[in-house]
């Protein structure tokens, strides 16, 4: 096995051991992320059970179209990420850089959709802390709903931003030819991270956008 120059760190015996260590390490990190978002999902579970009506009304103020499109965009970017891992493993450098670029573009598109959703809610006066004005039924619990909504989607958006930075660095290194079929662990590890970010949104979308659409 070609130990690609600086690729093998001195404390590892061989490249295989190093790859398994990196992916195992990333999976441990993703377990912490599961619990990090888990704390907020707990708050969501408790308060949705306590205030179902307020959550339904709050959810109906969110635009279903933007939510569905953003989910689709994120799944596409996840698909392109998977393709980039595949092309890294098969040594096709240009395909790798191309897919990474596509993933980044779609990630930015997702952020754009998310920010437009936020702006729409802000202009409707539904952003707690920024002149929250809501006078229909049960204003306080609806404010709680939007407080939770902005906290969770905000945390998710920050993770998407970190992902964009990470993928850009990977794309630049890929463009410089740093990865070969034998050594492309960084691509796989950032792939794991990006799929996790998509995973969180797969749960956020139904829990926030599909609570009580039938009442609309």
């Amino acid at each position, binding site marked *: 096995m070609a130990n690609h120059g600086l690729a093998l760190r001195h404390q590892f015996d061989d490249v295989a051991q190093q790859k398994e260590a990196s992916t195992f390490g990333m999976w441990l990190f993703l377990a912490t992320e599961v619990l990090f978002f888990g704390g907020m999902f707990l708050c969501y579970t408790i308060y949705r059970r306590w205030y*179902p009506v307020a959550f339904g009304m709050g959810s109906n103020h969110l635009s279903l179209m933007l939510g569905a499109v953003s989910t689709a965009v994120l799944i596409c970017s996840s698909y392109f990420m998977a393709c980039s891992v595949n092309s890294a493993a098969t040594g096709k450098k240009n395909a790798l850089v191309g897919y990474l670029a596509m993933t980044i573009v779609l990630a930015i598109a997702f952020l754009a959709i998310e920010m437009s959703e936020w702006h729409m809610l802000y202009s409707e006066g539904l952003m707690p802390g920024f002149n929250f004005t809501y006078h229909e*039924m*049960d204003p*306080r*619990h609806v404010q709680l709903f939007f407080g939770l909504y902005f906290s969770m989607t905000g945390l998710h958006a920050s993770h998407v931003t970190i992902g964009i930075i990470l993928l850009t660095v990977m794309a630049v290194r890929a463009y410089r030819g740093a990865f070969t079929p034998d050594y492309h662990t960084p691509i796989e590890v950032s792939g794991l991270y990006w799929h996790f970010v998509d995973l969180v949104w797969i749960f956020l979308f139904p829990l926030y956008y599909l609570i009580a659409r039938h009442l609309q």
Partner: protein
Amino acid sequence: MNSGFRLFPEQASTTAQHLDHVTIYLLIVAAFFSTLIFALIFYFAVKYRRRAEHERVVESHGGMTLEIIWTVVPFLLMMVMFVWGANVFFEMSRPPDDAMNVYVVGKQWMWKTQHLEGQREINELHVPLGRPVRLTMTSEDVIHSFYMPAFRVKFDVLPGRYTTAWFNPIKAGKYHLFCAEYCGTLHSGMIGWIYVMEPAEYERWLAGGPAGESLASGGEKLFQERGCANCHLSDKPGRCPNLVGIFGQPVQLTTGQTVKADEAYVRESILDPSAKVVAGYQNIMPSFQGLVTEEDLLQLIEYIKSLAKPQQQAAPPAARAGRKQNR
């Protein structure tokens, strides 16, 4: 309250007696295992001290039976602790029905107690001997904790929610009251006294005190002033639910849920009416958030409770205050 040197706290309530039996059991178990471990260490350390520099030791492999013994025995001892402790806890969690109701409002760094007869006290509570006392408590700002060491009673007092504690005094005297949940700058100043008095003495204190009107009648006055009466007492259906006889009954909401009309429901419906709208009515009631204080809420709840009684209760409030309240 002799403040001499003491190792055990005073026993001034039935709960204290029951709990002290559990405590003795706990102390015995702890004393046994601590001395066992200390003695074994000391004995082994001396008996098997290293005599020669390169002394060889015959290895004794692990003994499964020993391992099982010191897993099962502690576990069984602890199960006794669990069951006995849970028993006392269950008793602490259920006030008896004939308990005398007292309302407590915790506020940053003082306790306000209110008797049903109308007496209001700051950082003090006078109760008669021989009758259990049930405390319904709430807080105006942060979490406090109503703690009476002599009665072994402690319960947190939360903002936006009612919590309950109770004790049955067995000895007259003056007992400490502490706030046990950190609540800010003068947390250590939020202390007071519980006076347990002989029944006769208590009556004299009750009569001698400021003759304010009872909570229920105070609530009735508020009910009229704030305009609740013309809506909630009229028997014209459709505008708003009639509150006579509603306390404690299940209520059907527009969302299909049914909730029990307890203190928390009444409080929430006054402060945030649109949260739980009764089935068949619109959400037209204005919120009284910020217009009523915690004490007003307690009076209104007491009045609505009094509405729950059958019709003869509607005697004029003045007459009711005169009679002794031994509900």
